[in-house]
């Protein structure tokens, strides 16, 4: 698929007609496809759908047919309601004035596939294609198919028999015995998007459609996997049945012999058991005295009301009036039910056989070991087979498990060797939060039973763990390197450590809230640090001072840049031999660093190592003495490694450190090999939750600490992600915790320091393509302006402004091509990076742009990169659809991104769920901009709102911003109106100043 191809939304649903059950697939696109009147205007041809299907599945042998079928859609005039994925990309035009949509029938070209085939596709992994997005109906059937897959995998299906008016057929039927399965079906029914019923509108309901799909999927899939079994000539009905289970035709016979009747009633009996409202339950009774006899008591329990439960004992003999009254409501033959249940239970948990020896089995005696076995191994299995197990309240909890607390104190040496520093330690044992002495531990280790009675509680004692700890206590060493101590807490999963505390300077390491020496703000800092920023500076000072690499992971908008600049400045001021710090960052952020450094620390001499005319090898090494800070990009790290390697850096700061992972192993190795006295990583994403980011960042700040790639995978990635192991996750947290400082906008200490609404300007360079086009456009305008006067002159100027603004958003807005590659515009690159952080933090954002085409590009890029939905409000959208968008955005669980390309008007639009506002391009009138911003910000709300304004450096955007801020010789007063007409009143020489592009603004895109 070429880069100019559009996005398609793939739809599909199960379809039932008189003859068969099939699956329909169709695709939707934002390009209006001219068709005959009754055809859905945005549905592609069926052939196209088949082609798209082949692009996403791995198996090309799927049989497809094509057809057109009618389906009902809510329709605004002549526009059917579009899927959320492309809503906003299409103009409803006149139809947007229609307030009340109607249900209209449209012809939709579809590809038709068999259920067994689609089941295989939907329950497997498809190839995933950037341009093809699954619609909500498609996603629903994926879920349904996954559910069916699980049913088949757990063998919750049986070969049965079904009868209709003339024939007897075999069928593989799903058996949903447990209440969790049954309630999952109901949940799925409620979750079905109504679009799934569009082709069967008014004929069937959601439950029927789902259950039909499930039954047909199980049956046809099972058949298709079995090699056909041919029956011998004299085969009876039983063999006919068995054979038909393996063939495509499910026919068994036309006659109803006795055998057939038997198998038929057997099928029905199974269903009855599932539908029967009572189930057998197991209750565990602990021993009275000191002996080891536990009892497993047999009970009858109501499925609908689990509080209705009586023991078997009361039913045998039929003496108990109340018990009889209860059970007779459901069956005339209660004993049959009890025996059948026991019979089946015995197949799962064989010891029950012993109980069946007596006449009226009511309970089964067990030793504590057997009880442990039962609870651990058989409980879940019984639960899955339609039994109920009343697990004791104390089972499975983490009580009764002893754990360790490590108390570390400074070692005998005073040298600050980072992780190699020697430290002393003491061990404390705790159980259920209470310290416990060695004597008590030894006593517990000696008890035979697994379960210990303490007061009213029973505890399960983990003997293995107890013994391990006793051994550790005996092997306690004197001093170990800090890394080893931490590793005890983290890596070795055999030793249960729950906490680490420290004394002396170690206290600062393990407990960041502890008071640290608060250094003075550096003298050369042009600005006031906020409280939490001072704490940050103090922490950086401490960590770097002790030789630890560290990571500052504050939320976006809290001012990490300023904190780092303060640290660099402070270090610079306090040293005799001043060194040079290297700042590595993404290209789109370089200008911002320059800006901030110049603003806050003008005494530091800054050099940007970037661009095609950057210094060659020896030149940089020779002139390095002239600089205090050198900024370069990740892309140049490997390319210019030879140069950078030669310099002994004072420190290295990796901004947007998650880029290290993106840049591949070469770059990770490169950044690790550079020599530096301190290393600091900066990131806004919550890296504790992102294992890959975590590993690559730690690889940079403390190499080797988390182990190599393979070890990390084995020790952490697999247990945490694949098995969802919480203890490993905790351990990792303890390992990395001391080295990461993260404050978020919702922290109490932070909120009081921050203004509710803060505007942050982000300076973004232009790409080479943009620079070239920019210069050419300006040149042409200046030439024209010489000759023209009056209206014609203003006309040219204003249209040039528009052209340039569009160019800075993305070149395709000016060239008209459909290449939406994000690298053609640094604004897009920066936006995508910011969105990654915002999404990772679970926040919501509004993106304002004046141009609908920019909005379309942004939406497409978001879908492709994040697979997230981006609401898009553009021009003509029907009122109902607009309201729907706003409601969904304001809902906490709804979409997180809202792109708006209409003038912020539309009074009363409330979008306060957003805590971030991005002005992708700007209205140069503060009043208009604020009105847009205020969609999200309301005075007095408790959330902090960050407003980001993108400015392309060196361009007219930067200059006009300068005018608005009163920083240039051109007075603010000339900005009179709400549009840019004032620009046309400028003299030619002023125009030249305003429009000419500054050279330094140009970033380098991949050579």
């Amino acid at each position, binding site marked *: 698929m070429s880069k100019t191809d559009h996005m398609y939304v793939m739809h599909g649903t199960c379809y039932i007609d008189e003859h068969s059950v099939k699956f329909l697939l169709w695709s939707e696109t934002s390009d209006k496809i001219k068709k005959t009147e009754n055809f859905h205007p945005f549905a592609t041809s069926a052939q196209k759908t088949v082609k798209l299907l082949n692009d996403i599945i791995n198996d090309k042998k799927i049989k497809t047919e094509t057809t057109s079928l009618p389906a*009902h859609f809510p329709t605004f005039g002549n526009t059917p309601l579009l899927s959320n994925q492309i809503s906003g990309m299409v103009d409803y035009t006149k139809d947007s004035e229609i307030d009340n949509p109607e249900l209209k029938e449209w012809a939709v070209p579809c590809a038709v596939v068999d259920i067994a085939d689609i089941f295989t596709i939907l329950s497997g992994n498809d190839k995933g294609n950037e341009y093809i997005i699954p619609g909500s109906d498609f996603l629903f059937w994926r879920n349904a198919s996954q559910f069916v897959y699980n049913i088949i995998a*757990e*063998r919750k299906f049986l070969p049965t028999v079904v009868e209709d008016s003339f024939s007897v057929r075999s069928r593989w039927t799903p058996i949903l015995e447990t209440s969790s399965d049954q309630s999952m079906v109901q949940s799925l029914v409620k979750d079905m998007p109504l679009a799934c019923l569009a082709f069967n509108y008014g004929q069937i309901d959601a439950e029927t459609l789902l259950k039909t799909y499930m039954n047909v999927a199980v049956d046809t899939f099972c058949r298709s996997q079995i090699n056909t079994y041919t029956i011998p000539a004299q085969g009876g009905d039983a063999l006919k049945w068995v054979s038909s289970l393996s063939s495509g035709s499910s026919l068994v016979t036309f006659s109803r012999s006795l*055998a057939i009747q038997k198998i038929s009633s*057997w099928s029905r009996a199974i269903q009855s058991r599932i539908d029967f409202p009572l189930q057998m339950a197991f209750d565990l009774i602990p021993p009275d005295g000191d002996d080891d006899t536990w009892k497993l008591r047999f009970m009858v329990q109501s499925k609908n009301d689990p509080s209705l439960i009586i023991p078997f004992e009361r039913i045998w003999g039929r003496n108990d009036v109340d018990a009889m009254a209860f059970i007779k409501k459901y069956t005339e033959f209660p004993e049959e039910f009890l025996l059948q249940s026991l019979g089946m239970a015995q197949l799962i948990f064989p010891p029950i056989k012993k109980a069946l020896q007596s006449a009226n089995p009511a309970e089964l005696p067990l030793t504590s070991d057997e009880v442990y076995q039962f609870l651990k191994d058989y409980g879940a299995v019984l639960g899955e087979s339609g039994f109920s197990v009343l697990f004791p309240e104390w089972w499975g909890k983490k009580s009764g498990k002893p754990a360790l607390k490590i108390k570390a104190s400074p070692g005998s040496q005073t040298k600050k060797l980072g992780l190699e520093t020697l430290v002393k330690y003491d061990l404390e044992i705790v159980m259920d939060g209470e310290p416990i002495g060695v004597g008590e531990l030894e006593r517990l280790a000696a008890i035979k039973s697994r379960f210990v009675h303490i007061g009213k509680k029973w505890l399960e004692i983990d003997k293995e763990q107890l013994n391990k700890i006793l051994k550790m206590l005996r092997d306690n060493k004197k001093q170990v390197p800090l890394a080893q101590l931490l590793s005890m807490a983290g890596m070795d999963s055999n030793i249960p450590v729950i906490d680490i505390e420290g004394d002396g300077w170690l206290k600062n390491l393990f407990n960041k809230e502890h008071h640290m020496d608060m250094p003075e703000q550096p003298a050369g800092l042009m600005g006031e640090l906020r409280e939490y920023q001072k704490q940050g500076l103090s922490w950086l000072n401490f960590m770097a001072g002790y030789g630890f690499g560290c990571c500052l992971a504050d939320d976006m908008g809290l001012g990490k840049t300023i904190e780092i600049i303060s640290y660099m400045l402070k270090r610079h001021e306090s040293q005799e031999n001043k060194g040079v710090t290297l700042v590595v960052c993404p290209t789109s952020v370089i200008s911002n660093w320059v800006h901030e450094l110049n603003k806050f620390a003008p005494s530091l001499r800054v050099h940007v190592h970037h661009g095609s005319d950057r210094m060659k090898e020896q030149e940089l090494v020779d002139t390095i003495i002239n600089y205090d800070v050198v900024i370069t990009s990740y892309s140049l790290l490997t390319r210019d490694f030879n140069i950078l390697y030669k310099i002994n850096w004072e420190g290295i700061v990796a901004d947007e450190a998650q880029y290290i992972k993106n840049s591949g192993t070469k770059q990770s190795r490169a950044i690790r090999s550079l020599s530096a006295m301190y290393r600091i990583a900066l990131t806004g994403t919550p890296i504790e939750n992102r294992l890959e980011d975590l590993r690559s960042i730690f690889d940079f700040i403390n190499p080797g600490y988390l182990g190599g790639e393979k070890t990390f995978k084995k020790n952490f990635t697999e247990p945490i992600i694949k098995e969802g192991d919480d203890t490993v996750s905790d351990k990792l947290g303890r390992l990395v915790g001391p080295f990461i400082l993260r404050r978020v906008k919702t922290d109490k200490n932070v909120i009081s320091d921050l203004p509710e609404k803060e505007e942050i300007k982000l300076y973004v360079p232009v790409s080479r393509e943009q620079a070239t086009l920019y210069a050419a456009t300006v040149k042409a305008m200046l030439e024209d302006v010489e000759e023209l006067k009056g209206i014609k002159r203003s006309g040219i100027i204003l249209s040039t402004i528009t052209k340039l603004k569009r160019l800075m958003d993305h070149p395709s807005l000016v060239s008209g091509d459909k290449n939406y590659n994000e690298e053609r515009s640094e604004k897009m690159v920066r936006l995508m990076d910011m969105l990654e952080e915002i999404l990772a933090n679970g926040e919501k954002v509004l993106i304002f742009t004046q141009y609908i085409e920019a909005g379309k590009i942004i939406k497409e890029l978001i879908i492709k990169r994040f697979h997230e939905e981006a609401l898009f409000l553009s021009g003509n959208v029907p009122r*109902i659809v607009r309201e729907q968008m706003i409601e969904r955005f304001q809902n906490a669980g709804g979409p997180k991104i809202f792109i708006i390309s209409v003038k912020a008007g539309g009074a009363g639009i409330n979008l306060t769920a957003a805590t971030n506002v991005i002005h992708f391009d700007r209205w140069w009138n503060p009043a208009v901009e604020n009105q847009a911003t205020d969609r999200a910000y309301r005075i007095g709300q408790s959330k902090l709102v960050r407003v980001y304004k993108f400015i392309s450096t060196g361009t007219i955007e930067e200059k006009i911003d300068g005018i608005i801020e009163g920083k240039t010789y051109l007075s603010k007063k000339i900005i009179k109106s709400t549009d840019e007409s004032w620009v046309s009143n400028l003299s030619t020489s002023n125009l030249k100043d305003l429009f000419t592009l500054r050279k330094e603004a140009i970033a380098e895109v991949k050579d």
Partner: protein
Amino acid sequence: MSKKYYGNYSPYYAPSRPRKAEGGIRVNSKGGVVAKKWWSKRFIEILSSYGWANRLQRGRRYARSGQVLRINIESGKISAEVQGSMAKPYRVEIEFQEIDERTWNNIIDAMKKKPEFTSLLLAGELSPEIEELFEKSGSKLFPAKPDDIKMNCSCPDYANPCKHIAAVFYVMADAFDSDPFILLQLRGKTQEQILQAFSEAHNEKHLASGIAPSNGTGISRDFIDKFWREPAITISEIHQQSGSTIIPLKKYPPPSDFNDETITAILNRYYEEIRKGLEKINR
């Protein structure tokens, strides 16, 4: 009932001939049955059970000749004008006992639980079980005894109900045929009020079937919201087989003919082939 003596009329009931009424409400003047539907019949039946058979007969004739000029129905109350023998039409007022709000809530709740009631009602029919439903909810659909109906007529006839009142009853019964809501209105709830209470239930049910509940001009907002709504549930693949480790056929052994060694072996093989097939699904 007011007694008025006009001229020679004595207080005893005497047959009289009414004046011809122009433009009155004619009930089935060609003969044939008045009140065809079961509830209308039942209404008449109950009135007859009060011992009013004779008078009702006369009322029927009046109704057929169109002597009832106009009828006004408010919740629970009927006021009508009937042309008698005098020049000025007689005023008839009939009042039924209103069912209180709480009981109505019970009735509507009970009706909501059985969708047939709703759909029949909307189609212009009353379900035969409705009397039972009213009773279970603590009330009665039709008035239980004569005292439950207050009747008034400005004519001189002592009899209660007089033939004018009876005529109005017949006209009502005929009206019940085409619109059972009137019957319910006499017990205190208008059509709008009842439908309002149903429309939520109606919407829910229809949404579940994927049918768009219409609100008169278009489809409901709820339907639009749910049309393309993203699924909230995600179902993940189970990792270990937490299910039974025994083959389901052991839990539910088939009948003896189907349980011999050959068949069991074949079925086990099938399960194995299915398991292998499942593993092949691209992961």
